[in-house]
């Protein structure tokens, strides 16, 4: 028998491209300060659509970090993914020379809700405006929701297990769980996460069919979950990529273990059936806690899904109480995404990044723009709360009915 191995899945790197920051440091500063950056939609072609407020990534120039030949063949959502992956790998101190030594030991897992809408719209306009001969060949790959996994792996030369999770917004958490499983099965590291770019005209029009989308035009009032003023969610772009790495591999190269991906659960309760999501989300939480061997009382902070639709908010508050018992009404709950908007699959990955940073910094970030909670929850509002979270629970639900929960443990947790 060989030496006992520690194949626990550790987070060793975080890369963020978010509406409130293009680096992990700026993202965390804006997040713990409760800065709200949801704002009037300014993206070209979207100005006159009924969606008025969104979380746009405005300070990002893809050409600063990504080679032109990758830019011409990819959509904005993949630009974000390539940049966030670079940031995460740099953060984990895994440079090209390190990963080139054993390319089969590192892979990529992403989740995407809508793929490359902006690129696709441009090519479809050429198709109907000029004819099929004017559609560029890269349309065949750029729109596809698997594009980010493929391009990140090609660009960085990763040849380990690669996959794409297509499971609704909760897929962001499922991708991290999938990465953790790959690591436990023997791959040293997976770059995992999600980035989205749903703020192009075609993509916005697709979202107008969602009853849950906020039509409010005043940024401060557009996304206020868990209040009587809840009027839907504000969409966002950007996202995060994490390096999920085997604990022993991380230790062998002297890398810091930031947190463990300790447990995950996923269920499905059907599109827009928010009352039913209560049971589904509670079950996902129970599964995640069971896998993490975590008692409900050990959960120190909950990063809520926080859809902003009264029936969905009620179901989530009840699901937390169902799964955590009396602890569910005492544990601090937060939803920093009210300050950035909800980036579909990317939203729970940003929440996971915030959860890791929250445990590192001993601060629970607040829920911007939200006051006067109408549910039995200890929602952190106003200012960040000083605490020592050692176990974080991240929740996500999708508009199409997926529910997921992820348990993260601080390295000092048992």
């Amino acid at each position, binding site marked *: 028998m060989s030496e006992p191995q520690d194949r626990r899945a550790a987070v060793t790197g975080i890369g963020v491209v978010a509406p409130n920051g293009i680096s992990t440091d700026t993202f965390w500063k804006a997040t713990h300060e409760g800065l709200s950056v949801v704002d009037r939609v300014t993206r070209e072609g979207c100005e006159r659509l009924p969606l008025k407020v969104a979380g746009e990534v405005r300070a990002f120039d893809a050409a600063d970090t990504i*080679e*032109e*030949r*990758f*830019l*011409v*063949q990819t959509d904005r959502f993949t630009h974000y993914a390539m940049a966030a992956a670079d940031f995460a790998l740099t953060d984990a101190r895994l440079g090209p020379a390190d990963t080139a030594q054993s390319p089969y030991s590192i892979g990529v897992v992403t989740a995407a809700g809508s793929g490359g809408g902006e690129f696709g719209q441009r090519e479809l306009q050429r198709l109907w405006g000029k004819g099929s*001969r*004017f559609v*560029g*060949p*890269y349309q*065949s*790959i750029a729109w596809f929701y698997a594009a980010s996994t493929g391009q990140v792996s090609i660009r960085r030369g990763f040849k380990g297990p690669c996959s794409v999770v297509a499971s609704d917004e909760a897929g962001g958490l499922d991708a991290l769980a999938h990465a953790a499983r790959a690591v436990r099965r023997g791959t040293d590291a997976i770059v995992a996460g999600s980035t989205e770019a749903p703020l192009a005209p075609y993509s916005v029009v697709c979202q107008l069919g969602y009853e849950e989308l906020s039509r409010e035009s005043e940024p401060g009032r557009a996304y206020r979950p868990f209040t009587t003023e809840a009027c839907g969610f504000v969409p966002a772009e950007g996202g995060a990529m994490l390096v999920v790495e085997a604990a022993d591999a991380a230790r062998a190269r002297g890398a810091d273990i930031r947190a463990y991906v300790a447990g995950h659960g996923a269920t499905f309760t059907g599109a827009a059936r928010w009352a039913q999501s209560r049971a589904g989300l509670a079950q996902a939480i129970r599964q995640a806690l069971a896998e993490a061997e975590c008692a409900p009382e050990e959960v120190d902070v909950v990063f809520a899904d926080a859809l902003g639709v009264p029936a969905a908010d009620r179901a989530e508050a009840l699901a937390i109480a169902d799964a955590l018992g009396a602890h569910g009404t005492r544990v601090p709950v937060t939803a920093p995404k009210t300050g950035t908007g909800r980036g579909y699959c990317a939203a729970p990955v940003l929440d996971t990044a915030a959860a890791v940073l929250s445990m590192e910094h001993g601060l629970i970030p607040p829920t911007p723009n939200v006051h006067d909670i109408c549910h039995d929850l200890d929602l952190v509002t106003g200012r960040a709360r000083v605490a020592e979270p050692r176990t974080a629970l991240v929740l996500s639900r999708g508009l199409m009915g997926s529910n997921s929960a992820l348990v993260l443990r601080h390295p000092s947790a048992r």
Partner: protein
Amino acid sequence: MSKITVEELAALMKKAAGVTVSPEQLNDKPDTGFDVLGVDSLGLLGIVGELENEHGTPMPVDAERCKTPQQFLNLVNNTLMAGA
């Protein structure tokens, strides 16, 4: 019908495949593979499509299978000259 020059090919490589290469480079080392230059199969397909639209004439099917700029220019220019 005019021949396609290295200048034109370099511009198309930039536009369709995002690859920056100077006409001088293409002249000096015309046998450097498209793969080495960073033009993948879809990129070459895009270059062929641009040429077809620009010149209003189909390119030979083998054009998108050429391995080097030299091969590509020979094939495409022979076709254009033959059709002229």
